[in-house]
C-alpha cells in the first residue's frame, strides 16, 4: 500500500515529463533531448527566485520555461524542421549541451539548494499506518490538474488542430492549419509541462544542478517509447507503468540484485516492446502519411 503511493508519485513525475516530450514529438517527430534542460532552467528560476512568494516563483518558472521552449523552437529547431530525424536529434543535443554549459557558467557545477514550498508542506502525514508525504499529494495533484487541463485544451480549436497535426501534419496544413503556430503551441505547452516537472522535481530533490533534469528526462523518454511514440495517453500510461516497474523492482529485488535494478527495468521495457513493438498504445509515428 505504501508502495502504491510511491508508484503514484513516481509515475506522476514521469508522466509530467513524458507528456512534454510526447507533445513535441507528436507534431515535429522531434526527440527533444533538451527537455531535461528546460526542466533544469525551471529549477534555477526557483533558485534565483529565492524568497519571493511561492506562487510568484512558480509562475515565473512556468513563464520563463514556456518562453524558453518557444524561443528554442524558433531559433534552433525551426531551421531544421524539414531535415532528417538525425539532424533534429543532433540539434536537440546541441541545445541541451549549450544550456548545460550556460548553467555551469552562471551557477557553477556544484549545484544550489532550493526550498520550493514552505516547511509546513514538506512533512509527512500519517493516515492509518501510511506515511503520506505532502509532496506526493502535490505531485499527484499537479499531474492530475495538468492532465485534465490538457484534455480540456485538446477539445478546443487549437487543441483539435494540435491533435490533427500530430496525426498527420501535411493533411492538417492542407486544411490551413498554420504549421508555425501549431508547433509553437506544442512547444509552449511542452515548456509548461517542463516547468511543472521542474517544480515537483526541485521540491523533491532540494537541489538544482546542471544535470538536474537528465535522469528524469531519460526515464520519461523511455515511458514515451513504452507508451507508444507520439500518443499522449500512451505517454501517461507508459509513465505510470515505468513508475510501477521501478518501484516494484526496487522493493522486490533481493539485495544482491538491487544494484542491477536499472538493468532489470530496461529488461522489462525491452520485453514490453518485443510484445508490442509500437508501444502499449500504438502511436501515430508508424502510421502511413501522404
Amino acid at each position, binding site marked *: 500500500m505504501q508502495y502504491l503511493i510511491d508508484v503514484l508519485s513516481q509515475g506522476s513525475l514521469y508522466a509530467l515529463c513524458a507528456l512534454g516530450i510526447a507533445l513535441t514529438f507528436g507534431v515535429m517527430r522531434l526527440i527533444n533531448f533538451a527537455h531535461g534542460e528546460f526542466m533544469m532552467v525551471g529549477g534555477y528560476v526557483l533558485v534565483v527566485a529565492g524568497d519571493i512568494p511561492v506562487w510568484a516563483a512558480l509562475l515565473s518558472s512556468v513563464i520563463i520555461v514556456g518562453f524558453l521552449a518557444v524561443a528554442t523552437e524558433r531559433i534552433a529547431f525551426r531551421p531544421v524542421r524539414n531535415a532528417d530525424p538525425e539532424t533534429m536529434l543532433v540539434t536537440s543535443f*546541441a541545445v541541451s549541451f549549450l544550456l548545460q554549459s550556460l548553467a555551469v557558467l552562471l551557477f557553477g557545477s556544484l*549545484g544550489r539548494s532550493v526550498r520550493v514550498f514552505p516547511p509546513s508542506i514538506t512533512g509527512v502525514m500519517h493516515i492509518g499506518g501510511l506515511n503520506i508525504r505532502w509532496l506526493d499529494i502535490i505531485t499527484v495533484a499537479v499531474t492530475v490538474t495538468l492532465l485534465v487541463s490538457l484534455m480540456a485544451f485538446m477539445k478546443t480549436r487549437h487543441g483539435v488542430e494540435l491533435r490533427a497535426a500530430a496525426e498527420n501534419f501535411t493533411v492538417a496544413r492542407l486544411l490551413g492549419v498554420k504549421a508555425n503556430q501549431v508547433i509553437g503551441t506544442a512547444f509552449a505547452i511542452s515548456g509548461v509541462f517542463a516547468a511543472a516537472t521542474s517544480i515537483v*522535481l526541485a521540491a523533491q530533490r532540494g537541489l538544482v544542478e546542471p544535470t538536474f533534469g537528465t535522469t528524469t528526462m531519460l526515464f520519461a523518454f523511455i515511458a514515451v517509447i513504452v507508451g507508444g511514440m507520439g500518443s499522449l495517453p500512451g505517454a501517461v500510461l507508459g509513465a505510470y507503468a515505468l513508475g510501477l516497474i521501478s518501484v516494484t523492482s526496487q522493493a522486490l529485488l533481493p539485495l544482491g540484485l538491487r544494484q542491477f535494478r536499472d538493468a532489470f527495468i530496461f529488461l522489462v521495457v525491452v520485453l514490453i516492446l518485443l510484445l508490442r513493438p509500437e508501444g502499449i498504445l500504438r502511436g501515430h509515428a508508424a502510421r502511413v502519411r501522404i
Partner: protein
Amino acid sequence: MSLRTRRSALTVSATTALLLLAACGSPGAGGASPSGATAFVIGYAGGLSGMLEGFEKPALEAAKMAVEDINRDGGLNGKRVELITQDTKSDIDQGGPAGQALLAKGAGALLVTADYNFGGGAARAAQAAGVVAVSVGAGSPKFGVQGIGPLAFTMGTSGAGDGALTAEWAYEKRAARSAYVLLDDTTDYNKDQCRGFQTRWRELGGVLAGQDTFKNGDASISPQITRMKSLPKTPDVIAFCSYAPGGAVALGQLRSAGIDSLILTNSGMDGTYWFEKSMPELSGVALPVSASVWGDDPAEEVRRFVERYKEKTGSQPQNMYPVLAYAAVQAIVQAAKESGSTKGADMAEAMNKFTDKQLLIPVSFTKDTHIDVRRPARMLVLDQGKWKTDGLRSLKKAPPLFAE
C-alpha cells in the same frame, strides 16, 4: 528564399555567439608559456569546465597559490615553478589527451582530477612518459602502483578507511549500536566506504539492521525509505555511501520522511551549498575529511590557508580539495628537492619515503601504497546547519584496502 537564407544565417550566428560565450567561460587551455630549462613545469589536467568545474577550479586556485608561495621562497633549487593547465571538459575520454598535451608542453609532473576514472587517463599518459602524476584527491587505492603504475599518487584517502573511521567514531564517541547501510552503488569509492564501515562495525560488535542501494541519479528514494521505515526500530546510524548531488537529494528525503538517524558519510557530502536553502537547520551528518575548511581545523596552517584562500578568491571553499591541491604541489616540489632530480622515477622514489611529511597536511606513502592510510582525519559534524570539527582521529584498525 532570401528570407529563409537570412533567417538561418541569423540562427547560425546566434548559435555561434552562444558557443563562444560558453567557450569564454572556460579559462584558455594552457595559458602560460613554459620556459623549459629555467623553470620546472607542473601541468594541471582537470575539468575546468563542465560538471567537475565546481571541484577543479577551486583546486586550481589553490595550486596556483602553492606555486606562488614556493616561488617566493626561492623556487625549486633556484628554478622557477610554473603551472600550466589543460581542460578535460569533465570528460573521461579527454583525460589522456589533456595529459599528453601538457607533457608535450614540457610538464615535469602532473596534477590530475580527484577521481580514478576522470584523473586516470592523464595519469596513465604521465606514467607512460616517465613523469609523476598526483591526483588531487582520488579515493581509490588503485590510483598508484596497483592500478596506474609506480609514478601515480593520490592525496586522497581510501573509501574503506573513511568508512571504517566513521564506524569507530560512531561506536565509540556516539555509543551507536545499530546501523543501516545505504549504498549509492554508482562509484567504487562508495562501495569501498560501505565495505570498510561494515567490516569495522562487525568487528566492533555493532548490529546491522539492514541494507539497501540506490543510484546517484534517482529523483526519489521513496521505496528505500518505505523499506527502512518498516524496521521495528529506527537505526542509530546510517552508513550513507554517496555524494552530492544524488546524495544530497537522498539525504534530504530521509530527513523529510522523519528519519533522524545520525548519517555517516564522506567528503563527497562536504559543503553547505547542498542544504543551506532546503534544510538550513540540518543536523546529524558526520564525515571524515583531511582538512576542515569551516574555520576550526585543528591545524593552524590549514586555518591560515583557508583564510588566505578566501581573501584571494573572495569565496568560501566548499570542501577540502583546495587544501589537498596545495599539498599536492608541495609534495611534487618536495620530492624533486629531496631526490635532487626532476626525473619521474627519482621523484617517486622520494615520495615513497614520505612518512607524516609535514606539508600543508601530513602526507605518507610507501613503496606499495600510494594513497595515504596514516593521515589523522577530522570528523566534521553538521550541527544546526554548521560544520564543526570533532577532533582528530586515527584508525585503530584498518580494513583491507582492496575488496577480496
